[in-house]
């Protein structure tokens, strides 16, 4: 069996201090393998988004270790973290998080701007290619405010894909979309998982979307209560 691409070992995450401490994650142990499509489900406030943030290195755990492709992200310096994100991780968030002053094309291409190894022409070609994959090529010159929620989310997916990361973290990607648009977004993510063998970690409270995942983790009160 392949080595896990994501590993959480005795992960705890607490917020606040003293008597006001809230434990968001409690002793989470987890292994996710390359190419898996994992859905993390549970009621609001159960810690599923916190788990995603900790697994992706956006937040540090209070204790425990998180390994991405064998690299302990809890030991990585602030300076080296961008490199790891660029090579391994793509994010899709509930509120799209596009930069309002950039067009769809620029939002996608911006991920590649820091890269000196990739020439400008190739960066542009890569951005156009992923926009085509999510069927947003015709809207490439539009600003986020000129696009619908579903279109913005497709641009956000294109942005997450442009540097071909092996892992895609999706935090409630359909939370701000109507059910039909949400289904379409999930179909795109499922297709990427199937065709590109990307590892997908999807956080959702919507049980209807679980059908796209091959593995479902259920959470309650900061613990993973079932894994199947």
């Amino acid at each position, binding site marked *: 069996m392949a080595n896990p691409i994501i590993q959480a070992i005795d992960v705890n995450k607490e917020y606040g201090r003293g008597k006001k401490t809230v434990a968001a994650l409690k002793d989470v142990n987890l292994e996710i393998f390359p190419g898996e499509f994992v859905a993390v489900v549970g009621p609001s406030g159960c810690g599923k988004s916190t788990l995603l*943030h900790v697994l992706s290195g*956006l*937040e540090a755990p209070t204790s425990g270790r998180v390994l991405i492709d064998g690299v302990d992200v809890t030991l990585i310096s*602030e*300076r080296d973290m*961008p*490199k790891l*994100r*660029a090579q391994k*991780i793509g*994010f899709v*968030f*509930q*509120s799209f*998080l*596009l*930069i309002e*002053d*950039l067009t769809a094309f*620029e939002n996608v291409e*911006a*991920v590649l*701007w*820091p890269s*000196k190894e990739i020439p*400008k022409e190739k960066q542009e070609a890569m951005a156009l290619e992923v926009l085509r994959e999510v069927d947003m090529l015709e809207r490439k010159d539009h600003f986020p405010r000129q696009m619908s929620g579903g279109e913005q989310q497709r641009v956000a997916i294109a*942005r997450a894909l442009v*540097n071909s990361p092996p892992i895609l973290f999706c*935090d409630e990607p359909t939370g701000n979309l109507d059910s039909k648009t949400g289904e379409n977004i999930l179909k795109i993510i499922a297709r990427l998982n199937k065709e590109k063998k990307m590892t997908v970690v999807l956080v959702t409270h919507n049980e209807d979307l679980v059908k796209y995942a091959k593995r479902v983790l259920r959470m309650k009160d900061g613990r993973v209560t079932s894994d199947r």
Partner: protein
Amino acid sequence: MNLRILFKSFRLAFRARKRVIAFIIIYAILFISVGKGLQAAMMTPGAEWPWLAMAFIVATVYAILISQFRARDIAILKCVSWSNSEILLLLVGEVMIVAISAYLVVFQLSVEILGIVAYFETDFGLLRDLQELIVVEAVPMLWTLLYVVFLQIPGLALARWRAMKIPPMRALREE
């Protein structure tokens, strides 16, 4: 230095039109005031310090404000793997383009006023008042640009420090 980010930052700055135009006007007034101050200080040594202090305050405040205005963008860019030095370049680009644009505005305005005054050979009235108010001699004007650019450095260092402190999670918390 990643010139691609620097050039993109110019374009990004002009997309935030209202803010950039407001600061170009503020910087233009700053250039005129400091230029006039330096011009006067040529006769009185030491009189340039209040003007330089004013330039320092405006330049620093602007650099800090940019990191504030761009906080969401900075957090998003960190999520998509930008480093702190690349983000600083984005801020430097915006500061540079505003300072240079303001300088060019004042320069162009001065040339136009001098041209009109010379054309009509007038020595009084509104045009002469405008000339008195706006036109700065070339040498103090050049010095002003150099001073403003130099005085921007501490502000940018502060802006970088503030940008460094913005966690990628900030973008998510604002959802």
